[in-house]
């Protein structure tokens, strides 16, 4: 529990629903992470052409009709799938849950680019005459869309909104959910993040112009954080939503608990639009540890944010060295090497992939490291093969984003 927080305010994870490029639920995702199975594949998108991406294969029609898919957005669809899966996983008696006491807090890196690009593309065929602009544009592109679609899909009448937090958004969604539970704004929180980013050419083109879009002859080898030959980000779609509850409520209904939110922190670099800041990242990690009442050497696994850019990976490793020194107990890994960068979902998804370690005591690896960059040579970095650990009681999850937004979530075994 967060140091100083009373017993009634302890927040736990009781359900996990996810859509990853290499798994459609936690069991599949974890199995892929332990087996070294990538979800990155060749991909082609308007104007940019051939590239690579992390593409999801979840069953869209499991919780939606074809009409729902036509009406809504990909981000909404990812969110609806993950939310339904999370509620099923939680074992909560959904039919008898007070839907007005459920809050939906969904992190997004961006929203609206996909629909806007599609509409402009369509409008080009009408010589840019705006009388042919869709009436669906606004409801699809309002910033709360992915959370709102979950509300509509599940009949949830409590608060819903998205948290725009660049690539720190997955963690930010979890933090928001935990805070709202502690404030008593809801009794059940659906919290996490989603990404539809592979459907906007703009994100690929912008990373390419920035010199930060990964390329490799073998798509599955393109995402290679910490490798000396890394050359950028693999854009991915996905989602991960948690059911969060107060510990007392979860215990009362005999829920299975995936872990307790032990601490969290967010801060800002205030130094650059795109370049990371190791000092601020280290401060964010240290603050989360302090709030959790933990020392760095009590952390078993650090799920790194590293995206495969030259500077980003180095800066994060510098930050982690500053906080963790040569902590013998701490292992470091990276899920983006398997699935690419799932943007708004990344924080939530990457944390989820590590949570089964509380029971199997295995730290999944960072794959695609052929030659470790000396600047990224953290002592506990788990490279290419999973590592069995003596114990896994504490997992720390980093997630950072553009404009200098940093987030850290710490989860404790319970």
């Amino acid at each position, binding site marked *: 529990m967060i140091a100083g927080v009373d017993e009634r305010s302890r927040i736990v994870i009781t359900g996990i629903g996810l859509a990853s490029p290499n798994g459609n639920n936690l069991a599949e995702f974890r199995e892929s992470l332990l087996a070294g199975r990538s979800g990155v594949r060749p991909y082609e998108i308007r104007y940019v052409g051939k590239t690579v991406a992390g593409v999801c294969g979840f069953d869209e029609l499991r919780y939606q009709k074809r009409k729902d898919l*036509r009406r809504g957005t990909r981000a909404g669809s990812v969110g609806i799938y993950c939310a339904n899966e999370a509620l099923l996983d939680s074992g909560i008696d959904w039919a008898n849950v007070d839907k007005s006491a459920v809050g939906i807090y969904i992190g997004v890196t961006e929203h609206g680019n996909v629909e806007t690009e599609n509409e402009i593309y369509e409008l080009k065929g009408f010589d840019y005459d705006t009388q*042919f602009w869709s*009436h669906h544009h606004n409801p699809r592109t309002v910033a709360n869309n992915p959370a709102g679609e979950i509300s509509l899909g599940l009949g949830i009448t409590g608060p819903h909104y998205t948290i725009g937090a660049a690539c720190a958004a997955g963690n930010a969604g979890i933090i928001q959910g935990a805070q709202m539970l502690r404030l008593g704004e809801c009794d059940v929180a659906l919290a996490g993040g989603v990404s539809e980013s592979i459907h906007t050419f703009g994100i690929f083109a912008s990373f390419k112009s920035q010199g930060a879009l990964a390329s490799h002859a073998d798509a599955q080898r393109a995402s290679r954080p910490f490798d000396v030959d890394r050359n950028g980000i693999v854009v991915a779609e996905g989602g991960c939503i948690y059911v969060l509850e107060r510990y007392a409520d979860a215990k009362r209904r005999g829920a299975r608990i995936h872990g307790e939110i032990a601490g969290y922190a967010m801060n800002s670099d205030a130094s650059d639009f795109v370049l990371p800041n190791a000092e601020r990242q280290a401060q964010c990690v240290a603050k989360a540890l302090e709030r959790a009442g933990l020392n760095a050497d009590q952390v078993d696994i650090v799920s790194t944010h590293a995206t495969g850019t030259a500077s980003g990976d180095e800066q994060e490793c510098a930050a982690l060295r500053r906080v963790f020194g040569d902590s013998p107990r701490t292992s470091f890994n990276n899920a983006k090497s398997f699935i690419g960068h799932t943007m708004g979902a990344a924080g939530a998804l990457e944390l989820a992939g590590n949570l089964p370690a509380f029971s199997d005591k295995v730290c999944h690896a960072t794959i695609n490291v052929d030659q470790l960059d000396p600047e990224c040579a953290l002592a506990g970095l788990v490279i290419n093969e999973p590592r069995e650990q003596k114990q896994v009681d504490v997992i720390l999850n980093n997630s950072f984003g553009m404009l200098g937004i940093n987030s850290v979530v710490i989860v404790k075994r319970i």
Partner: protein
Amino acid sequence: MTPVEIKAVILDILEGIAPDEDLSDLKDDVPLREQLELDSMDFLDIVMELRKRYRVQIPEDDYVQLATMNSTVNYLSPMMKDLEKA
């Protein structure tokens, strides 16, 4: 376009708007809303599709004319009689 062809166009548009529905038993003289799950955004889709495909302009005051298949075809016939089916 003949009334039969106009009806075929409307059915084609409805298939896109209501992909989960079976349109084979649609009754021409019963309001579409009583037979299909259609809301105001769906009716705007009908209006937009007609505008995109045939440049047919339907003023908002005339949306009530789209209540049934028969009323829709009757309303559109004078506007679309000289158009070729796309």
